[in-house]
């Protein structure tokens, strides 16, 4: 039988340390997950008073589709452009709008390149972190479909048409 030798000890220690680290990481993750799950978040309701207006809404009746956009996220901006193109040909398109999220300072300008498509539901800066802290949302590009009274109908990910669930 081989003797253990001095060289084996650091490896054994490293293996024990890696297991301890893995268990500790899993435990920390579990605690964070449990705490987040226990935290109450509100169901999104569209109330313009909770946001800072960057561009005014030109349409206040009917459905509003508001996209949570981070100005440094190219995918959610591309999603917004795709949505705008997709609904442009409709006879009664929903009012498309933007909620600028995770933006610590008021943006100087909205560089969204919508190629002439107007944001009928306006553009709004989430200065109070309503999207993240109040509603518990974390994925950029999420599209909120609100009815005329501001009640949430659906919330869909990037690349999805909100009223059909189909891919854009």
């Amino acid at each position, binding site marked *: 039988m081989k003797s253990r030798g001095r060289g*084996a000890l650091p*490896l*054994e220690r*490293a*293996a*024990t340390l*890696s*297991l*301890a680290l*893995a268990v500790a*990481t*899993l435990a920390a*993750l*579990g605690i*964070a*997950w449990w705490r*987040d*799950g226990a935290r109450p*978040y509100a*169901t999104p309701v569209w109330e313009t008073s909770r946001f800072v207006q960057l561009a005014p809404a030109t349409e206040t009746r009917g459905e509003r589709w508001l996209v949570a956009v981070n100005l440094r996220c190219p995918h959610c901006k591309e999603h917004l452009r795709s949505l705008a193109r997709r609904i442009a040909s409709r006879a009664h398109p929903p009012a498309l709008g933007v909620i600028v999220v995770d933006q610590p300072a008021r943006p100087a300008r909205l560089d969204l390149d919508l190629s002439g498509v107007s944001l009928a539901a306006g553009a709004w800066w989430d200065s109070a972190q309503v999207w*993240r802290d109040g*509603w*518990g*949302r*974390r*994925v950029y590009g*999420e599209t909120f479909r609100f009815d005329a009274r501001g009640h*949430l109908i*659906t*919330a*869909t*990910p990037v690349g999805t048409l909100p009223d059909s669930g189909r891919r854009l």
Partner: protein
Amino acid sequence: MTSSSIAPATAVDTAEARLRVTALLVATMWLEVLEATARAAHTAKPWLVACAGLVAQLAFTAGEAAVAAAGWQAIGRRVRWSALAPRLLVASAAETLAVSIAAGRAHLPRGWALALAGPRAAESAPPHGLAAAFAAVGLLAIVRLLLSAWLQARAARASFASAITLVLALWLGSRLAVWWTFDLLQGRSFQP
């Protein structure tokens, strides 16, 4: 006359060498599968993506081997990390096939694809962390777990029951990590 200092290769050495060559072949399988998957997804630089994916896969295997070695140590068996790492890579061969199926490269009927590669073979993205964590559970994932347990049991000279218990414990730990991480990253997004 000179005396040779090279010891003759034993059956164990030959088996170990064969295993390492197989591990190398599995690494090339990973590279091919990842490149083809990246190409199918119209990624700009599929080879770069594949190389990054292979590095990630090897790093994951290295970490998995370190944790498994510590797990064996915890139940009173000494298995070298260098013995476990190639075995875990060989066991992941089943996963390369599952990834191909999930990427739609195998042209299988939907039922077979789901049975072999798990729910990830369906096009829809998992709605929550629990679904994401177990999206890869199919027959090929079970083959991987069984093969990993068998190879580890031989390396540790332990019973298959001990090996499968350890493999399942580590696998469940990794599934919990995926579940919780997914939920934390997604928050309440997409919930009504």
